[in-house]
């Protein structure tokens, strides 16, 4: 799971501390020049969604080595929760809708969605995965597929196979002008929220006792158990946080794209998993990085006129990385067994 320190020690590659930020900045600059500002902003926002979902995949994989196929669908459920909550809020709206009301309703949407998703994630872990913790690896994988299918089709049963509009809480026309280009506040807000959540997660994992417990559990479950770590509780917290982040991603998806359907989790889940592999599975910083890279690849494909093949490109990237560099860009703690 972990924080940078873990992966650096394991991969044992002395690397200048500055190298990575410099590469990232150079990459961003090149993308900015190439695709233009609007698409660049678009990619950054999409990247925020992928990164938040990828974090859930990578945290769970890091700690129990399970590809949680249901995670993409947790994200999908979150977009629907967002839809209902913001719809309810907008119905309550009376009179003027000023900045204090906006902030309050955004806080409510995020808080409600994140809590509901965190609980759903923990419930899934408790009833579907925990009983299989000592079972052969095929068993939890198949269960995860089953859970994913159940979530998807319960939502389809409840709301039908249509694409829904998510009510717009955030005024879309708010923007600042930078020179001649228009920068919507929505993008700035979304990216800020996502980046702060990722930073908070890093701090949580590297600084708190629970974070330390998560790191040790991912390294050696039995040894950490002997050291007094409550394994069940730690794994449950991992699911709570991972699903909560997927909840946040769902809110952002709802706010930014303004629509959702019951299949949105499958494709996004696959892409977010690719992001997690790209960054080095089990490595949270890597997952965030991978999310943005995948988004840039996808938006890049759109810029080049291959929008229909975006999924195929991302998937090829997944296969290439799995074959040639299964440890991902930043190295993963489990990659050596790939």
């Amino acid at each position: 799971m972990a924080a940078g320190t873990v992966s650096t020690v394991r991969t044992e590659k002395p690397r200048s501390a500055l190298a990575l930020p410099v590469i990232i900045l150079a990459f961003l600059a090149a993308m900015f020049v190439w695709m233009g500002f609007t698409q660049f902003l678009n990619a950054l926002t999409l990247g925020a969604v992928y990164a938040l979902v990828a974090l859930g995949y990578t945290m769970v994989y890091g700690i129990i080595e399970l590809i949680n196929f249901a995670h993409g669908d947790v994200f999908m459920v979150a977009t629907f929760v967002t839809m209902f909550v913001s719809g309810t809020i907008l119905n309550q709206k009376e009179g003027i809708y000023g900045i204090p009301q906006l902030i309050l309703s955004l806080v409510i949407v995020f808080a409600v969605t994140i809590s509901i998703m965190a609980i759903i994630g923990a419930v899934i872990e408790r009833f579907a995965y925990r009983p299989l913790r000592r079972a052969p690896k095929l068993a939890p994988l198949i269960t995860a597929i089953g859970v994913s299918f159940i979530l998807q089709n319960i939502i389809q049963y409840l709301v039908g196979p249509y694409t829904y509009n998510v009510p717009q809480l955030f005024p879309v026309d708010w923007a600042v002008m930078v020179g001649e280009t228009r920068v919507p506040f929505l993008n700035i807000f979304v990216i800020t929220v996502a980046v702060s959540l990722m930073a908070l997660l890093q701090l949580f994992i590297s600084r708190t006792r629970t974070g330390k417990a998560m790191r040790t559990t991912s390294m050696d479950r039995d040894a950490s158990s002997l050291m007094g770590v409550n394994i069940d509780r730690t794994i449950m917290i991992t699911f709570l946080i991972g699903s909560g982040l997927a909840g946040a991603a769902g809110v952002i998806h709802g706010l930014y794209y303004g629509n959702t359907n019951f299949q949105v989790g499958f494709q996004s889940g696959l892409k977010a998993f690719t992001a997690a592999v790209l960054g080095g599975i089990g490595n949270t910083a890597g997952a965030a990085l991978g999310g943005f890279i995948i988004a840039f690849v996808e938006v890049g494909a759109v810029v080049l006129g291959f929008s229909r093949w975006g999924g195929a490109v991302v998937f090829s990237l997944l296969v290439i990385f799995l074959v040639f560099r299964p440890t991902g860009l930043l190295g993963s703690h489990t990659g050596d067994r790939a």
Partner: protein
Amino acid sequence: MSRLKLPAPLAALRARMRRHFGAHRTQGVIFAILVIGIALPLLSRVPPFGQLQSINAWTNAFTIAAIYAILAIGLNVVIGFAGLLDLGYAAFFALGGYTYAIVASPFFGIHIPFWPMLIFGAIIGAIFGILLGAPTLRLRGDYLAIVTLGFGEIVPITLLNADKFTAGTIGIGGIDKPQIPGIVEFTLINPWPFYVLIMLMLMLVTVAVFRLEDSKIGRAWEAIREDELAAESSGINTVISKLQAFAVGAAIAGFAGVFNAAKLTIVSPGQFGFVVSVSTLSAVVLGGMGNVVGVGAGAFVIYLIQSIFLKQLNILVSQLGIPILGDIDFLQFQYVLYGVVLVIMMLKRPQGIYPARRRMRTFADSKETAK
């Protein structure tokens, strides 16, 4: 079964059959499928089954169930024998179907007969299986799952977008039916020739898979499934062996795909979604991974529940006039059903309803072994 008291001559016959088919499994399989193939249509005439739907509708349902049974037996080679989770199995089914559709329909104006294409569809399936497997089978099992999941997603997308070759969303229609001139005519109305053909195909696949299971290759698969490291150190080339399992599974799917295309006379990307892979997987899990007879039966059960039982439940509930239940469309629950089957079976009975003897060892945890 064994506690059932039979009259002496019948008991003797049973004992003789057991001894004979125990020694000659191929003959046993052929005999069993013959019996089932004859019994199913007869059974569907008997009340209450006869009243549910017409005999032709039953025969069609059995034909499609048998296609699923072949798919399940093929997927079982990959999952049950070799222990590799393939979540994109429908892609090979699609490739087989499209291969036949492209060379035997008015779309390109080519009309290659059905029979050689049946073999060729299997070969195409195997080729794609090897192409996908060669780079990815070196990976750990769970990575393979996600790669196959992606592959299962990409193939329909490609079929959708490469509209010059596949007619996009509409799909390729008017596919040629099989022909045996002068003996039997395959038509849309008469389901019997297709039924007989699919039963023969099921027989062929089952015999082939049984023989593979007992062969050196099959034993290598089992060894890899139980302990890959030990298998490798015993001199098994694990990559080649897994590739064989993958290719055999894909070939069976391609084989079934050709028949499916000829039976439906149309292929379109929508037929080969993730749902097909998952329903096949649930048939395998229900029947017990590694158990050829079990997964075949599992496919029949899954298909008949979704296509007949749920429909009848709808009719029954609306006839009874129970207020709330009447509004529920039970057919919509079929997909949830797959998910529930996967989760419940894995939690409660991972070895399947009727487990294979060999397979039991894998899923017996330490507690059970101690007994």
